[in-house]
């Protein structure tokens, strides 16, 4: 079932379509919520809220716009509303206990670095540890940068589409993307006491 069929089926309240929809999007919504909320349990709660909102508002969705843009703007707004209502969640990062996690990642990083000559960067990126390392680093960024990086790389969105999701001008989104990449690199270099990345 393609996106159009999925929306049509959901609009008439089809349970099976919604099951498929949940399977297709739950991890993406969760991953995006995590960038703003940064706590697993809360991000799962946000994900539930987002699905409920989508379920109740699917009628209002215009076929002309892209489903993913609509879903991720709901996700971003829901997570942001939560943060505004619970500002105590906006703790300064990194948390002290996270240092031990970095030590664990550092060992993984050494193994990964050792592979770099024999393996392409693509294969390396598939390495499960590098995913942990990247997400860990991204979570040390200001949340807007984390959100932009997530939408750009994970959701493969164009800059223009990202502006629709987070409601910021094109150049601001580009700045967040640039600074996010730059800062992420700095974080990784510092944590792994290395001079260059793969």
């Amino acid at each position: 079932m393609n996106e159009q069929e999925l929306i049509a089926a959901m609009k008439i309240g089809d349970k099976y379509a919604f099951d498929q929809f949940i399977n297709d999007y739950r991890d993406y919504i969760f991953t995006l919520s995590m960038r703003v909320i940064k706590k697993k349990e809360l991000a799962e709660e946000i994900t539930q809220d987002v699905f409920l909102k989508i379920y109740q508002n699917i009628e209002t969705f215009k076929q002309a716009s892209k489903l993913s843009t609509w879903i991720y703007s709901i996700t971003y707004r829901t997570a942001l509303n939560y943060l505004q209502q619970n500002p105590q969640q906006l703790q300064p990062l990194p948390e002290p206990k996270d240092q031990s996690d970095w030590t664990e990642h550092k060992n993984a990083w050494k193994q990964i670095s050792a592979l770099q000559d024999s393996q392409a960067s693509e294969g390396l990126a598939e390495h499960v540890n590098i995913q942990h390392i990247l997400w860990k680093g991204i979570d040390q960024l200001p949340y807007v940068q984390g959100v932009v990086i997530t939408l750009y790389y994970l959701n493969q969105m164009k800059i223009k589409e990202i502006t629709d999701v987070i409601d910021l001008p094109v150049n601001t989104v580009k700045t967040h993307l640039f600074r996010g990449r730059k800062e992420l690199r700095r974080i990784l270099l510092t944590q792994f006491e290395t001079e260059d990345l793969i």
Partner: protein
Amino acid sequence: MTSHLSEKDMVDIIESPDLVSYELRQHLDTCQVCQNALDTQQKMHNMLYHLQVQPSNKNYAAILAKKLRQIPAAWLQDSVVYLAIGLLLIIGIYLITSGQQTGTDFWRMQSLKTTTEIQPNNRVLKTIATNISQVMHPLLSWLDAYIQLKLNSVTLIVFSMISLLFYYTIDRLIIRKKLELTFRQ
């Protein structure tokens, strides 16, 4: 020598390397600072390019699916609202028009009262009251007629709304049944 590349330029170059302008390319070829900055961005870009989703709790999807099933769909909630509004309209119109006293009757009574009850020596008050009654009486006659007319049109509208809603529900049930069969295959 042109100025260094902006953050925006770097993002554009990485996104579409083929679309770099001649000026930017020329600057880039000769400027080590920009080359280094771009190289840094490119390396991080290559790493991030294969970013994968973070899995959420598996059970939670089942919980959510169950939770969603328990909530009536938005369209069903809307239907209930339309039905409630329709019913309220019918009840309201019934209450307005079924009473023994219509607006016309009420003002005819008032007119009689003022002529009989107000003291004959209080002529000013009596004149005012009589005038008000006389103005209100034809106005209310007109309103009464309007309410009668409105009753008919409202009944018509409510009836059409209910019929449409019925058609809509049946239509959806049929499509839904068809789709459920499709999904099972």
